[in-house]
């Protein structure tokens, strides 16, 4: 059994709105990533997947607030640390974060190697500039990024190149966990593929030890990650390996998601797309029972009242539903 890189236990974070209402965007989320593995988080917009990414860093600023739970990175608990300590000791070395618009984060007046100097010096001010440049050069070579981009300004690079450069900069200190929040959604498909290839390379070469990949594009998630978790209304509703999740989803919501996949492959035209009616619940007043019950066509009255725990089955898999796995599988089979 390999080493656990990141373990999250019952993490709950909330937004406090202008009107002093609490919105629990991440509600008792637990997850575990082992060394060399990647975890995908899927869900619709507003389900809390981006908030989860922010929360995992342990770096909270209003309106996001920490409520409860533990974030353990390689045996070190970072929950409850002061923001300044998190910035100095966790970000960059333990966790790196790449948002969707990361490529727009580069100050257009500075050259690329200056950013690398900044990152390294923020953690070790004594580092020699020459060593840093050497380190940057060797890293860029290994990742297949052109070396002359180090001496360029951000505006001189294309969108896809900028995104890859930002990823290279933020992982220069070999973080243990990389959180990538839709890192390729704003790019065209070719640049997207290049970003994904670079992420894979970084995993293979050990520049990052584990990765959390967040996206709403399920085919991408299937190809990038080892395990997938599906989030709905702030909760994890199902988890499992990528293959199991795509071809054998158990939770009605994940099944709906997986049935909405469209890829340009033979036979896709005959697929029946699944539609889920309705809208996700308002997280200011989440429903008492199963949060999906309102939209679920398999829901029975008790679904609306019984609060559900995560139920483990078939080893590592888990789901959050009132029906048994057996029952759901039978229902699905009957439908087809």
């Amino acid at each position, binding site marked *: 059994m390999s080493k656990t890189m990141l373990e999250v236990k019952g993490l709950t974070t909330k937004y406090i709105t202008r009107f002093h209402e609490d919105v629990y965007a991440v509600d008792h989320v637990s997850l575990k990533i082992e060394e060399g593995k990647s975890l995908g988080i899927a869900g*619709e917009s507003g389900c809390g997947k981006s908030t989860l990414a922010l929360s995992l860093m342990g770096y909270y600023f209003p309106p996001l607030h920490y409520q409860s739970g533990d974030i353990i990175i390689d045996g070190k608990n970072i929950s409850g640390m002061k923001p300044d300590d998190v910035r100095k000791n966790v970000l960059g070395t333990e966790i790196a974060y790449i948002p969707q618009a990361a490529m727009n984060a580069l100050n257009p007046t500075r050259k690329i190697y200056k950013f690398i100097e900044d990152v390294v010096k923020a953690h070790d001010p004594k580092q020699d500039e020459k060593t840093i440049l050497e380190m940057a050069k060797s890293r860029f070579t290994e990742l297949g990024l052109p070396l002359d981009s180090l001496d360029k300004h951000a505006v001189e690079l294309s969108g896809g190149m900028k995104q890859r450069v930002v990823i290279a900069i933020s992982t220069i200190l070999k973080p243990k966990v990389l959180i990538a929040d839709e890192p390729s959604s704003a790019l065209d498909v070719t640049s997207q593929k290049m970003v994904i290839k670079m992420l894979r390379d970084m995993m293979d070469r050990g520049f990052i030890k584990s990765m959390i990949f967040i996206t709403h594009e399920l085919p991408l998630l299937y*190809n990038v990650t080892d395990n997938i978790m599906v989030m709905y209304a702030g909760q994890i509703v199902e988890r499992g390996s990528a293959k199991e999740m795509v071809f054998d989803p158990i939770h009605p919501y994940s099944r709906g998601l997986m049935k909405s996949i*469209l890829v*340009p492959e033979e036979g*896709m*035209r005959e697929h029946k797309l699944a*539609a889920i009616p309705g809208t996700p619940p308002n997280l200011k007043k989440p429903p008492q029972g199963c949060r999906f019950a309102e939209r679920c066509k398999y829901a029975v009255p008790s679904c609306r009242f019984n609060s559900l725990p995560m139920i483990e089955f078939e080893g590592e898999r888990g789901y959050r539903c009132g029906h048994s796995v057996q029952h759901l599988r039978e229902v699905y089979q009957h439908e087809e």
Partner: protein
Amino acid sequence: MRNEDISSRPLCLSGRGVTKIFTTGKTRTVAVDHVDFEFHEGELISIVGESGSGKTTLSKMLLGLLNITEGEILFQGQPRDISNMHKRREYWRGIQAIFQDPFSSFNVFNKIDTVLLDCINMRGGKRLPMEKKIEMMTEACSFVNLKFAELTNKYPFELSGGQMQRLMIARIFLLKPKILLADEPTSMIDACSRATILDMLLQLRDEVGMTIIFITHDIGLAYYISDSVYIMEHGKFVESGSADDVILNPKAAYTKRLISDVPKIYEPWDLNTVAQ
């Protein structure tokens, strides 16, 4: 649902050498470069292209919102004439659109009734009694699974993205144009609501018999929904044909690259073929 004999049907919209050049100062940008196309009645056409390929510019030219620099567009076999307001209104009775962002497609100061009433008026139903109008609006709303009674006196922004896009379809249902141009109608809404929207579009086509021009960057979606596909790169159509031909047996290098770069489910996705 899939029409096999489409090429024998009469032409609905076609273009010859349609070109758009933007001139700012001394720089000339060719956005759409001599494209030819033939859209048949009742056909569902997808125009697939990445951002910057000129597909939005082309769609605006098709709608008559943007002047054509060169070439001509034929509407139902006749050269399109939109030289004055009256003729333009006439043309717009035949072609309508659904836009990408439902949140910016509606005037936030107009109530939903206003939006729908406007469509009835445009179809010449201005003089109809109010009961008849309400009946028509109720029918349109029920077609898209919305309840008209709940929508009266509401503003569009009080709805969710998916509901707003459905309201957009209700609008098309009332207008019943010959051609519907759908510019990425599902790219801003959730995957779960996407199927609903697509189903409604297909149903609308079967019921009203309209031609749908579907503009998208998602090649998987284009393959799923369309009869024929036009692939656009740098303002040109690099490949066109029936969906099965283009997607399953791509000939142009660009199409091949596009298809190989999209993540797959059933076939392995080869990361090593990335163009450096």
